[in-house]
């Protein structure tokens, strides 16, 4: 017994031996991730969490200009678009190499896209590639010469350039894929500012500076990504000094970090919209006046200020302001006006028929869905609507909402984050996007004018022309109120005060190329 005690004391004193813990070294940035990455193959992943690593290891042909969602040259130095909007020709940057030493050229571009899209491609089986449909408009990719690549599209598709800047459009090393096959995601090779060094499962991913980066070597020597799935633990790590950067800080903790000079809090609105899908096909919301009444009845300012504690802004319409060039500035959000809502309900002859409201427990971009659902229920009941909430776990919820609300529910929570103003309305507001046609218009909103505007905007190659069409669409959709427009999320992050040049991007990508941490 005494010997056992002695052993226990030895163990304890060993553990106490060095109290100086958890100080991250200079020039190495430790990022607290919300989960283990699925893969480091940009063609194969879908999660923002993984993009935070990939955008620093790979480049696309184009990229989002700092602080915007507009594209600028990256691996392509320039490009031309044919008048019919069907042919995109890119002139590639010369002298760029992948981290594995193989050259970046037109063949690598062709390989990246054909691997994802072409089921007969010899390396298609290294997938699956769940977001390949971002590029489903591509008909052929041709390497004209070493530094020229030509994309032929099946039909004009204006978001094409923006999609090339998205994580799914990052260029992979053909040699890396050929050498590693399905394990490419664990032995990645790109052209980016940081190259892969080590992936210790469930512990860390380490990337180190690419000294030969075409856009200038990064100030940081290395970045370490640590997966910490539990939010409270992640906060504890930030407070105890185990990580330097923490994205996705919960609203409750923002204040604590704000009031502490050792930390800096960053916020940035992004292309996110949180809304309620209303069932426009049947039930009370088939009547436009009732849909508008719901928009008046819900106190959005209270939702974003109290429940989301200022981590979101009130949404005006279907398009988030982060798409500044396509956003209609003249739109004002529906004001909180319960009296007007009551009047509209009366005008519509609403007879107190109960409505079913699908609420989810959590999920990508859903913010605080249960608390928000409850507050929304209370607001609607205050104007005389009888709201029954049904709560589902995220995957179950998607399985119920995506096939359409008909016969099941009258309203449902939903949130989207996209990279182009085309994506969400095209997939969720057109008559051609009803669930049975493979779209996400789960509330069956249909307005031929909106359909035409969206189809035209997709065909147009001039950004000014597209902007006009989207602005018009926003006006009509706001008036028709197929959704209750609720919130645009501000992404946030907290860093140690010693982290320099840190910036959040509207794309929600974490770009670390210019970040420094001298101490």
């Amino acid at each position, binding site marked *: 017994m005494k010997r056992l005690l002695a052993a226990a004391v030895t163990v304890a004193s060993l553990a106490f031996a060095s109290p100086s813990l958890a100080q991250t070294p200079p020039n190495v940035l430790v990022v607290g991730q919300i989960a283990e990455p699925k893969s480091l193959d940009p063609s194969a992943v879908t999660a923002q969490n993984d993009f935070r690593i990939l955008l620093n290891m790979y480049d696309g042909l184009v990229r989002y200009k700092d602080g915007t969602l507009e594209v600028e040259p990256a691996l392509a130095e320039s490009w031309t678009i044919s008048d019919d909007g069907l042919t995109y020709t890119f002139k590639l940057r010369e002298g760029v190499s992948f981290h594995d030493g193989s050259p970046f050229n037109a063949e690598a571009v062709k390989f990246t896209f054909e691997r994802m899209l072409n089921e007969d491609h010899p390396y298609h089986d290294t997938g699956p590639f769940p977001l390949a449909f971002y590029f489903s408009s591509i008909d052929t990719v041709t390497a004209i010469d070493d530094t020229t690549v030509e994309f032929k599209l099946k039909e004009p598709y204006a978001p094409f350039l923006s999609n090339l800047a998205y994580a799914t459009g990052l260029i992979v090393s053909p040699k890396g894929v050929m050498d590693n096959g*399905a394990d490419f995601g664990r032995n990645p090779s790109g052209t980016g500012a940081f190259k892969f060094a080590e992936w210790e499962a469930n512990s860390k991913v380490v990337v180190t500076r690419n000294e030969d980066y075409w856009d200038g070597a990064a100030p940081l020597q290395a970045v370490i990504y640590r997966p910490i799935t539990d939010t409270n633990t992640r906060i504890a790590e930030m407070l105890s000094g185990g990580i330097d950067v923490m994205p996705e800080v919960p609203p409750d903790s923002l204040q604590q970090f704000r009031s502490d000079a050792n930390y800096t809090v960053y916020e940035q609105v992004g292309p996110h919209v949180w809304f309620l899908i209303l069932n426009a096909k049947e039930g009370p919301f088939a009547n436009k006046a009732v849909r508008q009444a719901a928009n008046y009845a819900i106190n959005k300012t209270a939702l974003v200020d109290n429940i989301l504690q200022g981590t979101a802004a009130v949404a005006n319409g279907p398009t988030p302001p982060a798409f500044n060039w396509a956003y209609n500035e003249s739109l004002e959000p529906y004001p909180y006006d319960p009296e007007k809502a009551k009047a509209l309900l009366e005008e519509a002859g609403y007879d107190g028929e109960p409505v079913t409201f699908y609420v989810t427990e959590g999920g990508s971009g859903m913010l605080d869905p249960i608390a928000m659902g409850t507050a929304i229920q209370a607001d609607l009941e205050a104007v005389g609507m009888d709201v029954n909430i049904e709560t589902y776990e995220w995957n179950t919820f*998607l399985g*119920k909402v995506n096939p359409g609300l008909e016969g099941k529910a009258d309203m449902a929570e939903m949130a989207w984050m996209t990279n182009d103003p085309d994506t969400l309305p095209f997939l969720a507001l057109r008559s051609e996007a009803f669930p049975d046609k493979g779209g996400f218009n789960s509330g069956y909103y249909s307005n031929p004018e909106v359909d035409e505007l969206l189809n035209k905007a997709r065909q147009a190659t001039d950004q000014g022309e597209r902007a006009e069409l989207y602005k018009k669409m926003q006006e009509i959709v706001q008036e028709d109120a197929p959704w209750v427009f609720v919130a645009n999320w501000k992404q946030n992050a907290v860093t140690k005060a010693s982290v320099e040049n840190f910036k959040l991007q509207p794309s929600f990508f974490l770009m670390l190329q210019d970040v420094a941490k001298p101490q």
Partner: protein
Amino acid sequence: MSAYIAKRLLAAIPVIFGLTIIVFLIMAMIPGDPATAILGSYATPENVEKLNRDLGLDKPLVQQYFIWLGNMLQGDFGRSYTLNRPVIDEVLERFSATLILAGTSLVLCSVLGLIAGVISAVRQYSWVDKAITFVVLIGISVPSFWLGLLLILVFAVNLKWFPASGMYAIYGGGDLPDLLKHLFLPALTLAVVATGVIARLTRTAMLEVLRQDFIRTARAKGVTESTVIYKHAFKAALVTVIPVIGIQAGFVLGGAVYIETVFQWPGIGSMLVKAISTRDLLLVQGGVLVVASAYVLFNLAADVVQTILDPRLR
């Protein structure tokens, strides 16, 4: 003895396979499928169907199970599609981390629980007994995930004595002292409840033994009090306590699920939680198989030890 062990092991096989069938069915029955989980908002019926085909999930359920079983018997546990690596690598790596955590915890709770129980029993109704009983009751009642967060707050955030999470330091470290430093808080948290249970039980068992005739005989023969307690009474009480420690081993494994999540310990519990929420069927199957086998083995080990200690059972 070896015949007994072999018989018990054989009996465990149908239990484990039955379990894999049940888990497989539950995973198939809960709504939501892997393709939806991967695609999230982009899960159109068309995309889901294509991805399911790529993942080999478009086949009938029974066929899927037998494909899994067939491969498994040949040592191929499949590939996790959320982690994009072989299930067996992930499961073994994770399980060894859990064994380190649960094993340390088990040693910790057995030692502390036995000591506390014996002291309590020998000094029955004294202030020491009352103090131990009080602490033990609190230990049994406190939810362990909350206790874990509290310990992190005190010892990692404020005092900075121990790291808040993880198994090894992110840079440097990787040696035994580093591991122990990371291990201390989660192992302690995980041990608290089991310590309480074992302490209570040891106390009762010891009290019962101390009242028996052979103890009176031993004392009458003039055997010293410490020999009576540690050699005679404690050994007899262990017979009651050991099977409970075996059961506690199972609870410790189960409790590891929360503790691993709170402390970001890369064990099999946190792996299973993630795998279930992403509907990673093969990973769930592999994980359950290993955990269930371990549970069976622990109980078997406890029974064997008991048989060795208790001559009446031979």
